[in-house]
């Protein structure tokens, strides 16, 4: 167990080092692609807090992602840049507030009903932005100026520069991972897993399960908001598609593909998902079939579900255990 934990840490640190070095070598295209993947990794980890640790299968997580994007778009003045210092916290706070209100309702339902009600809330938000003027309708809103990040008068980063933005996202990805890991190792985190395993017994032991779940829902919503904010910054526009159920489904697939309940698994899942999307839709390789990339994607996900119930991170764990066993033999 400890040997396994150490090895995992070593692998994760190596991955972060590799990510930090990447923009030095990678092309513009790939730097942008990896940025997008890291943003989706934050999104997927935030969902893992609900699905993998608290046992809440949300099918409406894109609501937070999209809400934060729209929050940014509506906050930036048309002809100047806004400060990241307050727009990011404000976007996340909007998501936390939305999570608090909707969570108080959805968390009264269970199982399939929870899935349906989370989806329903996301769909409602979709139509709010799709059908109203202030959300720009189906065209959405352009964000002409990326937020600035200044300390006093000096600019810390210039987010118009791809690599600056890349490093901002990398730092936030690592920070979100560490914060979530810390939360999950705490008494609060242990209680969440207890609720996932046996909520009835948790309540009988004196835990107000509803409040714990609501707290997890709010944290998860705020972190999903961070990823949605970053995505809006990266692409420079928002439209209702970012709230659609496709988006909620995609992030759920990343979590399952990577292995829920591991945090790093969903990050791997985000990587695999986006890369597969790129690969299967590559015309040079798949020619006419590239149009049907969703088909290849579907088949891959079915295979993973069948043969890797713990997702891609399950492979890593299997490898870790084998190595541990080999080490034990040596001792």
């Amino acid at each position: 167990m400890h040997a396994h934990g150490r090895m995992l840490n070593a692998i994760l640190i190596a991955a972060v080092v590799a990510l930090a070095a990447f923009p030095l070598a990678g092309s513009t295209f790939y730097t942008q692609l990896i940025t997008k993947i890291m943003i989706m990794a934050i999104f997927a980890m935030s969902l893992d807090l609900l699905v993998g640790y608290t046992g809440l299968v949300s099918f409406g997580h894109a609501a937070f992602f999209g809400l934060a994007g729209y929050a940014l778009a509506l906050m930036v003045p048309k002809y100047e840049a806004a400060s990241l210092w307050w727009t990011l916290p404000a976007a996340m706070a909007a998501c936390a507030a939305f999570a608090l209100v909707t969570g108080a309702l959805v968390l009264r339902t269970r199982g399939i009903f929870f899935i349906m009600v989370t989806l329903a809330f996301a769909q409602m938000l979709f139509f709010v932005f799709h059908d109203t003027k202030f959300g720009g309708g189906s065209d959405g809103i352009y964000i002409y100026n990326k937020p600035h990040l200044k300390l006093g008068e000096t600019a810390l980063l210039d987010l118009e520069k791809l690599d600056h933005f890349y490093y901002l996202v990398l730092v936030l990805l690592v920070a979100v991972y560490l914060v979530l890991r810390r939360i999950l190792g705490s008494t609060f985190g242990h209680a969440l897993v207890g609720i996932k395993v046996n909520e009835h017994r948790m309540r009988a032991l004196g835990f107000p399960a509803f409040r714990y779940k609501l707290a997890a829902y709010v944290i998860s919503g705020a972190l999903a908001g961070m990823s949605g904010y970053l995505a809006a910054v990266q692409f420079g526009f928002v439209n209702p598609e970012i709230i659609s159920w496709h988006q909620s489904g995609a992030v759920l697939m990343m979590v399952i593909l990577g292995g829920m309940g591991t945090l790093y698994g969903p990050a791997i899942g985000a990587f695999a998902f986006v890369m597969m999307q790129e690969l299967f839709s590559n015309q040079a390789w798949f020619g006419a079939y590239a149009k049907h990339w969703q088909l290849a994607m579907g088949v891959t996900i079915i295979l993973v579900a069948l043969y890797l119930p713990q997702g891609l991170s399950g492979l890593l764990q299997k490898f870790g255990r084998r190595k541990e066993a080999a080490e034990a033999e040596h001792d």
Partner: protein
Amino acid sequence: MTEAILSTVDLTRRFGGLVAVSKVSVDLRVGEVHAVIGPNGAGKTTLTNLLSGDLAPTSGEIRYAGADLAGLPSHRISRMGIGRSYQKTNIFLPFSVFENCRLAAQSRTPHAWRAFSRAPGFRDINRQAEAAMEAAGLARRRDRVAATLSHGEQRQLEIAMCLATSPRVLLLDEPLAGMGPHESQRMVELIKQLSEGHAIMLIEHDMDAVFAVAHRLTVMVNGEVIESGTPAEVRNSPAVQLAYLGGEDNLHG
């Protein structure tokens, strides 16, 4: 006689047309083991569920420390010092024995909400969990995953978790069911010890155990109390003899 810490007044629970618990009045006192016996389907577990808040009563009162508990959610009742064990083992199967007890102990602390302090770092919680494992005879199994325990050991864990919440009132629903003779003996001793500072309601089919520890007995049949009193009174009650028709040797062990 000391005053009752928990008492019910005409407690009733219906399931549709079925009255599972019908106008039941029982008293629990600190220092006493109050055994509730009766044939299958008598309503014993339903009574426990009403006292623990797992079910809300249809009517009647549950008085505890000056409050009426009827209708309160189970987590509030638990935090007021009423702990229970389940007849059907209800534990965290994927967790270690220690983590099962640690979670139970954690529920008592004001720190339960701290999202940034590592869970295994709370010394008082850990000590409480260790003590509960020790008392229930599970210290040797500390790091075993609960799912891999024998049935009897899972029953012990059920009790250990209840103890780890340091309750004043213990509601034990057939704690001996499924335990081997050795563990049963140990559990009977434990219940005797615990009765010193606790009020205990014991539901049990093993009459030897019941008569070994009970200070007071209530007999339920079809949701109703047909007799309540000291062990001697109940043993000699014609109504009980009748209800246990042919099962007389049950009562005499």
